[in-house]
């Protein structure tokens, strides 16, 4: 659950991969069969697939902006991007944690099954699309169509959510502190009960954010689209 903190990330003595001098392929080959526990990636310059497919308990610090699919399919790894991340950061994450200190592009945490994704800045459209158990905490705002068809897991948005939040949502729980543009089909506001305050407290702590849980509103599925009925003739 706990994300890699800044202090922890900075305290270790990592193996350095400078992408001015080596390739993403060489980096990922090492990360897939690690000979160390801590890595630092220099000059990423928006390269794709950095740290995709990690399946060991290692720390990876990306010093700069990452491209598409950074830390995709992560299992057990703790990845920090000291910059922004492109499309599909931590897509299909299974476990471990990914922290983006800047903004994230579209489809952050898409289809993720577990682990914690923290985006300290804002996330673009379709954040948490089809999430299946991942926890996502966004320090800023999320773009339109976020949590589309979200099935399980928690999405916490400390800023605003764009239009179409939670369209066709199943059982994921969404928490938004700021405004919500419009709610998607079958997504409704629900009461924030004690157990929700408790899980929000836990998620905000894990993300290192100190907002009051009571400032958030909860959204989830009205469960009106689970079954076809006579009312859904247009479908």
């Amino acid at each position, binding site marked *: 659950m706990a994300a890699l903190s800044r202090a922890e990330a900075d305290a270790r003595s990592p193996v350095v991969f400078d992408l001015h001098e080596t390739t993403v392929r060489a980096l990922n080959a090492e990360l897939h069969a690690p000979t160390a526990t801590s890595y630092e990636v220099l000059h990423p*310059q*928006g390269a794709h697939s950095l740290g995709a497919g990690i399946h060991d308990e290692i720390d990876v610090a990306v010093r700069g902006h990452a*491209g598409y699919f950074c830390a995709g399919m992560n299992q057990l790894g703790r990845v920090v991007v000291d910059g922004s991340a492109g499309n599909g950061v931590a897509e299909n994450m299974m476990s471990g944690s990914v922290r983006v200190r800047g*903004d994230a592009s579209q489809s952050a945490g898409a289809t993720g099954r577990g682990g914690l994704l923290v985006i300290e800045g804002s996330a673009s*459209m379709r954040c948490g699309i089809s999430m299946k158990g991942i926890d996502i905490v966004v320090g800023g705002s999320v773009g339109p169509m976020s949590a589309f068809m979200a099935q399980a897991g928690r999405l916490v948005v400390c800023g605003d959510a764009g239009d179409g939040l939670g369209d066709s949502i199943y059982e994921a729980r969404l928490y938004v502190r700021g405004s919500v543009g419009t709610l998607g089909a079958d997504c409704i506001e629900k009461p924030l009960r004690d157990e929700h305050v408790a899980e929000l407290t836990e998620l905000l702590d894990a993300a290192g954010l100190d907002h009051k849980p009571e400032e958030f509103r909860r959204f989830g599925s009205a469960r009106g689209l689970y079954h076809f009925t006579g009312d859904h003739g247009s479908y």
Partner: protein
Amino acid sequence: MCGIIGLHLRDPELQPMLGRLLDDMLCGVSERGPDSVGIAVYGDGERNPEGHSAVSVLRAPGDLAASAGALLPGTPTVTARVAGDTTVLSAPVGVEALTAAVAAAAPEALVVGSGNDLVVYKGAGHPQDLARTYGLRAVSGWQGVAHTRMATESAINPEGCHPYSVGADQCLVHNGSFSNHATIRRELERQGVTFDSENDSEVGARFVAACLAEGDDLEKALLRLGETFDGFYTLLVTTADGFAVVRDEIACKPAVIAEHPRWVAMASEFRALAELPGIDEARVFEPDPGKVYAWQR
């Protein structure tokens, strides 16, 4: 897939570096479209000098400069520069006159760009190879656009490259596909608009050109495009003084904008922007769906 880059310089001191900056940006989107490329540059005083106009042509016969010059009043000298598949002709005459002379002298040639400030290059092959053929790194100017193509619907040839430049000093580059372009094409044809290709992006370019000709500004023209066209698109549209980006309401096709006091840049991916001077201080954001972002010189 396809890749788009665009750079609009605010600081005149950067103008001698335009080609180098564009070439670096092109590297960042080459993987998105490795089969062909189109490049448009505004303010290249060497290929399109002050007081001249230029016409960019594919399938140009070798004697086109002389034969087009002979058709112009006063038979001015027409300069031809050949770079790969593209020939750029320039002369100290108005753009309509030069375009008409080129079309009359070589009906088999295809005009792919024209303007008082614009030159367009297109070619099949790897984007980096073509950039070298054009000598892109040495080019100066105040605005540039390029498109790297991964052909999906029509052949890999220079004619299929973007930008579509169908009005003087206008360019449109498109990542995506329009779904109702045939209907809009028929409507435009009824209004007298003629087309060079079967390409859906050309319909978008002709539509925008028609809106601009009616007096719309870039923002209004692109909002009208959004009301009329169905499909997926990220568009970058440039004119003699403008630079605008718009995405469809679903925004599946990527786009990143970076705004800096010295420049405005747009690309399909951040990595194409990573080498721009001052990128760390720039405001980097993704354009919202359906919203037009426009800048004027």
